[in-house]
Each structure stands twice: as C-alpha cells, then as structure tokens.
C-alpha cells in the first residue's frame, strides 16, 4: 500500500530558511566581536578571576618528613573512617622499631573524595590534593601505592578556610 504524505501549504515567508539563517549568523557575528569567556584548557588552567578552590578535594598525596620518609605511622584511622573502604593499610615495623605502613594503597576509583582521611590523620600525613587531571592507561594504575602518593607534586587541600575554621 502506498504511503500518502500530507503536505501543509504555508506562505513563502514562513517556509523559507533564508530569514532564520540570517538571524543565526547575526548572533554568531555579534559574538565574534564580544569579549571572550572561554578558558584555553589545557594550555591555560586558571584565570585571574577563576582558579581551583584551595579546599578542592582531589586525588591523594602523602606528606613526607625531612628524611624523605612518609609521615604515616600506620595508625589505621583512615581505613577505619573511610566511607568508601578504599584504603588498604598493613602496619609494619622498621629496623628502629618505629611503626610504619608496610602496605598503603588508595583505590582512587573507589574513593568518594570526602576528605575524612585527611581530617582524621593525627600525623597530617595523608591529604586530599588540589588536583583534577587524572588519566591513566589502565584501571590498575588508579590504585595509588605509597610511593606514588609520596611522589604527587600537586598542592594539598586545606579542607577548611583558615580565616574561618569553624565555617561560621
């Protein structure tokens, strides 16, 4: 059975595209001359009036002491407080009898970036970082081990505003 197509008769002024095209082009040309708002990422990552908040919570970083060793004493509070259960910690003992993390791994895929680990840490060792560019070639690489966490160069989060620590 043949399909019948119903054609709606319209006046020429309504069915022509010329008018709509001209309208669109006018908008485009107006923006060519207007001031530009787009940031040229990745060449540019911040602007004078826009930068990442110092309280941004991104991928972790482990603080190191003067000797270049991790500050972590493997107290076990961060795996305990972690709501996503993404921190794996096995405590050990070094040759001087000091407690240190034998294994310390954070699964950044599982992490919800709540920052509780930084807040609970009594040694100010683990931090969430002011950092958002995370790309890897494999999923495994998102499980950060202790060395990786110590190598991270990005600044760490302040979690709260120093001028207003109680958030009032």
């Amino acid at each position, binding site marked *: 059975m043949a399909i019948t197509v119903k054609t709606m008769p319209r006046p020429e002024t309504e069915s022509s595209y010329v008018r709509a095209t001209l309208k669109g082009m006018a908008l485009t040309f107006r923006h060519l001359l207007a001031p530009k708002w787009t940031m040229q990422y990745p060449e540019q990552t911040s602007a004078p009036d826009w930068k990442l908040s110092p309280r941004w919570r991104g991928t972790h970083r482990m603080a190191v002491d003067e000797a270049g060793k991790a500050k972590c004493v493997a107290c076990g509070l961060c*795996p305990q407080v972690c709501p996503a259960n993404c921190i794996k910690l096995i*405590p050990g003992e070094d040759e001087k009898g000091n*407690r240190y993390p034998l294994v310390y791994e954070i699964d950044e895929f599982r992490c919800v970036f709540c920052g509780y680990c930084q807040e609970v840490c*009594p040694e100010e060792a683990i931090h969430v970082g002011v950092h958002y560019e995370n790309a890897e070639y494999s999923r495994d690489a998102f499980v950060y081990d202790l060395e990786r966490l110590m190598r991270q160069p990005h600044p760490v989060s302040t979690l709260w505003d120093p001028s207003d620590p109680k958030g009032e």
Partner: protein
Amino acid sequence: MSDLVKLTIEGHEVEAPAGTSILEAAKLVGILIPHYCYHPALPVAGSCRMCLVEVEKSPKPQPACATPITPGMVVRVASDVARAARRAVLEFLLINHPLDCPICDQAGECELQDYTHEEGRAAGRYADYPKRYNPVEDFGPDVLYVPNRCILCTRCVRFMENVAQEPTLNVSERGDRARIGVFPGAALDHPWAGNVVDLCPVGSLLSKDFLNKARVWDLDKTASVCGGCTQGCNITLETRDNAVVRVKPRPNMAVNRWFICDEGRLGYAWLNRADRIEAPLVREGGRLVPVEWEVALARAAELVGAGDGPAVGLVSPGASCEALEAAARVLAARGEGSAGAFRVRQGPERPLAGVPDLALRAERAPNVAGALAAGFGRDWDAAVARARAAGLVLVLDESLAGLAEPVTDGALLYIGTVLPETARGAVVILPCTNVAEEEGSFVNLRGLRQRYAQARTPPGMARPAAWILDAILAALPARAARAGGRA
C-alpha cells in the same frame, strides 16, 4: 551462702552476699564502675582511685572495689561528686601519658582511652611542662614494657606475686618517678607471664608477637578452644585477612578463669600454614591425581568397603570429637577386628600456682579424652605394627612422623591438613580443615566437652574431617548386604 545484703545502686535495688564490694554488686545490675587496678582474679589494691563512687552519708567518695556493701547503703555512680572525682583521677593519669594512641597497640581496647572518651577532659591543663620520659624496656620473652604509658595499677605485679606466685615484677622508685621494674637478675619468663599483657588496662605491657601487627578494631574474634594441651582453655582466635594473628583467653570460670599459658598464646602459627593439601588426591597408575570430591569419596568408600581383613586407624588426638567418632564408625563398618590408636606429644607440666586445677598439661593435645571415648587406644606402637600387615590403614590428621616407610603393605587412606613424606604412598588423600577452620568440640581432661567455632575459611577444597568420614560412611556399598552375605 552468707547473708544477703540489700542496697541501692543508681536507683536499682541490689541484693548481694555480705562482703561483696560495691563494684561487684553494681555488676549484678549491669553497671560497670570504671576501674583500673581492680581485677576479679587479683587481690584488691585500691590504688588507682578510678572506681570512686558517691556513698550517701559518707564524707568522701569511696573506692567501689575496696568498699564492702552494707545494708541500706545508697550508692551513686553517675552523680556530680563521683563524676568529678573520676575526672580528676583521669586528669592526673594523663599528665604524663603520651599522646601516642596512633602507634599504640592497645588503642581501641584501652581502658584509659575509653574512660577518657566517656568522662575525661577534652584538653589537658599541663601543656607547659614536658612529659616524663623513660625508654622502652624488654621484660622477657614476649613482654615489652613502655613506662611512659604506665598508670601504675600494679595488676601485673599482683599477677606475678599472687597468681603465678613467682614474684618477678615490682614498683621501682617513688612518686612521679615510679615505674614497674623487674627484680635484678630476673626476667619475666614464667610460662604464664603473657597474661600480664591482657591484664594491663593500657598499652604499657605489650606482646612482642603482636607488636605493630594489626589494629584491634580490624580483628574478627571467634570463640575457640586451645589445642595446646588437655586443659582445654577457652580462647578467642583473632583473625585478620583470613589469618590468625593473635590468641586471647576467653574467661571461663570452670576451666581457665581469665588466663592462658604462653605456649597456647603464641602457638598459633600452624593454624596459618601455607603448605596445605588443597584438593583430594587419588592414586592413578603411579601418580597422585587431583580429583573432585565425589570421585575421591567414592574411591575412599571402595577402599573401606572392599578388601579383606581388619583396618587399622592411626588418629590424632587433635581432631574433633565429631571426626574421631566418625572415624570409629568407619572402622566399625570395615568389620570386626578393626581398631585404632593415637599418640600424644609429651611436655613438662606447667601449673599456674594461684589457680586450682589449671596447668599447661603434660599431654600436649586437646582431645585425648575424646579419642579415648570414641574407642581409640593408647597402644600406638602395637597399632603401627598391626598397620604394616593390615589391608587398610585409615590416618586421621596424624603426622606419621618417625614411622618407617611404607606405613603399610595394604591401602593407605590419608585424611589430613598437610601431606608428610610418609603419607605420599597413600591411595586416597583427602584434605581436611584444622581447628580454626571448622566447628567441632573437644573433651578436656576433666571430661568437659567444649565447642569451638570456625575462625577462617579453609584452603582450597578442604572439608572438616567429620564431614569427609560421614560421607565415606554414607557411600559405603551396601553395608547391610555385606554383613548379610557374611552371615
């Protein structure tokens, strides 16, 4: 029973025998008065002052552990007076206590931490003064002493003096320099010395074995029974990531009170052995081939059901009652004349002097009474001699160490956790679980049958020996018909 005394604790009417302390009477109505130096196993010292409670008509707060109850006494535990007293005690204790909970093994089960969290001050007032510092001392084979954390409750001193009855520890120096010391020339090497670690309410006395190994809140705790000797001490197996990392005593007034010996405490490494049999093995040709359980059980049942002559059982007194009873049933099904025997490792008996009928027994296996009750004898050498000519030898978790190879000229059915060289000639090898991986029961030397629970998952395909033996029994080809055919 002596006269009952009526008193009121926190508004609860309590009736307790005369001579009971307020602290024990409060426990009867479910009120735990905070305390450090008091322990039901030890004589009362009354030195920590933590258990101060308000007693009506008494001019000052009274120590609940050292005040006997009197008729009509009205005790308040949570009143302002009592709370203020305990708060002050906590503040004194914390003046020199280091803030090292993050690296302290006791954190999480520390009474100082708990009570400070409950009713202590949020911040100290002695921030301007340096804290007293003393280096860590080595007290003995398994005990480390951290003097900075010590609150001088003297539980450890009293344990060694009154329970172990071998005074080794003392309070050295006086005043704020006081610390726990070891007598010159002595060491804390009593076979029950490890209990001071459990008694210590803070992280001052530490087990070297458990040092920095795990956080206590990560541990899964399972009620179990110690397999070290015939005493049958109740223990808690503490596991992390499917490995036993610590053994703690579980109070049982009828068996071990609050204590276990060091051999039981530290002898848990074998529970985590990695060289376990993980699959049933069946001999095919000259080789042992791993097979499914159905195949292995059918082959085992064939071995038991077929063949002539009585079987000999070589069993371990470390197996559960259930497994031993099932093994006895399998031997009985084999026919008349089948019998089994076990041997027990011997060691010196180490009593804990202050507790009646508690010792590390000479017979170092948990279920000797259970094996005897199941019908196994102590005539090990005779059984080994009979095994040589027997048609079938059933081995249940026995190491066969020291036996000449081959154990038998007949068929060897080996059920065990690990595979010793001597058992490699077996026809069927079935992997079974150890005491931490199954539920079962042991009978101790006083005839008390005690259950233990499963603490970790068994490796590979291993199954409890009792299941295996019952499955063999169920699969036996027409037992009744065989018996009828003989008649």
